[in-house]
């Protein structure tokens, strides 16, 4: 994990109790994780009472640096020791390092989940509906008499709220073929899990 000079400078300020008091530090670290994870930014960091005695410009810089640190650490799946090394270089006290690590490690899975939301994928099947029809006749042919399955795959796509449908019909044989292939895939997954 590498941090920019700006971020490191901001972290040094953040570790300096002359700029950010111990109390304010805890509040700030909490706010960083909360602001990242909550969808609605109900209140700005600037309005937080616990941070009212921190210089505004310093607060903005510290906040940005901490966000950078947290996101980069989550991106690289860094553990507490890695973060500690960086923070020691930025002259953090052991207490502050502990506080940050504790909060960060507890939130890490959620932040990583947030980061995993960034990307692009083909439509993802999340559910399936089926209907069984018995095809009797049409205007050209009578007594067709065969079962027809209507299969609807429900898919999700990035950046869209609703699921989309992929619809197709299957005869009995075709569905058997499909299920056979899916079962093959399942079996291979199981095999892969028993390595």
């Amino acid at each position: 994990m590498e941090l920019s000079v700006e971020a490191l400078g901001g972290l040094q300020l953040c570790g300096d109790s002359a700029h950010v008091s111990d109390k304010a530090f805890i509040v700030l670290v909490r706010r960083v994780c909360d602001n990242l994870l909550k969808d609605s930014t109900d209140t700005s960091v600037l309005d937080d009472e616990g941070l009212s005695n921190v210089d505004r410009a310093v607060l903005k810089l510290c906040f940005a640096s901490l966000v950078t640190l947290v996101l980069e650490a989550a991106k690289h799946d860094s553990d507490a020791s890695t973060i500690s090394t960086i923070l020691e270089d930025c002259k953090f006290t052991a207490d502050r390092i502990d506080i940050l690590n504790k909060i960060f490690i507890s939130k890490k899975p959620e932040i990583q989940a947030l980061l995993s939301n960034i990307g692009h994928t083909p439509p993802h099947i999340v559910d399936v509906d089926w209907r069984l029809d018995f095809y009797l006749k049409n205007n050209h042919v009578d007594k067709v008499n065969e079962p027809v399955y209507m299969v609807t795959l429900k898919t999700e796509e990035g950046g869209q709220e609703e699921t989309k449908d992929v619809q197709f019909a299957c005869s009995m044989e075709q569905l058997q073929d499909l299920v056979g292939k899916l079962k093959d895939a399942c079996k291979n997954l199981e095999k892969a899990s028993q390595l």
Partner: protein
Amino acid sequence: MLLLLEDEHKEHLEFLTSVDLEVVKEFCRIAMEFIRKGPNLKVYHTAAQKLDVNAEAVQHVVEGLMYLLTECAKLMISEIDFQDSIMTLGFQEDLKQQLVQFYLENRKEIRAILCKMSMDLPHYHNLEWRLDVQLASRSLRHHITPIVTMKLHTGDCETKEVTVLQTDAVNLLHLTQTLQQALDEMKSSHCRRIVRNINK
């Protein structure tokens, strides 16, 4: 089930009684060609000249045969029912046998042709799959996400469509189980009873 022939139709077909068995065979062949490829007026004319009759009469008899064959095939009329249906035409025994035989020989093909004409929904053709494991992305460097990527081939008689989809292990299991249930449903007593009753 009997096919009720209309009077005009009967009139047209009566012409068959006046010609040889060989000619009837030829007419049957022409009617079958009609079903396969559509009408051919030239053939009517040459036939009419050979038989020294009106070309219109030939056309009528061919179209009458064609209609008889397709209607019977459409309704999947059995051998006995077919015989009974053409009884009203008052044909001789050998002519009747000839027609029955021709009907039985060609019923399957006619039905296939009719099936092709009928409406078709996008159908499943094939499924290809592969197992991927996403190990890193631009924003997340160390994680493991197994993903099954699939290529679904569907299409009706004209268009072919390929859809690329993906899913995870949990959803794949669910998908497989649900579709297996759908397959099993066909073997349930309820479905079997209905199918039996319909096929009666």
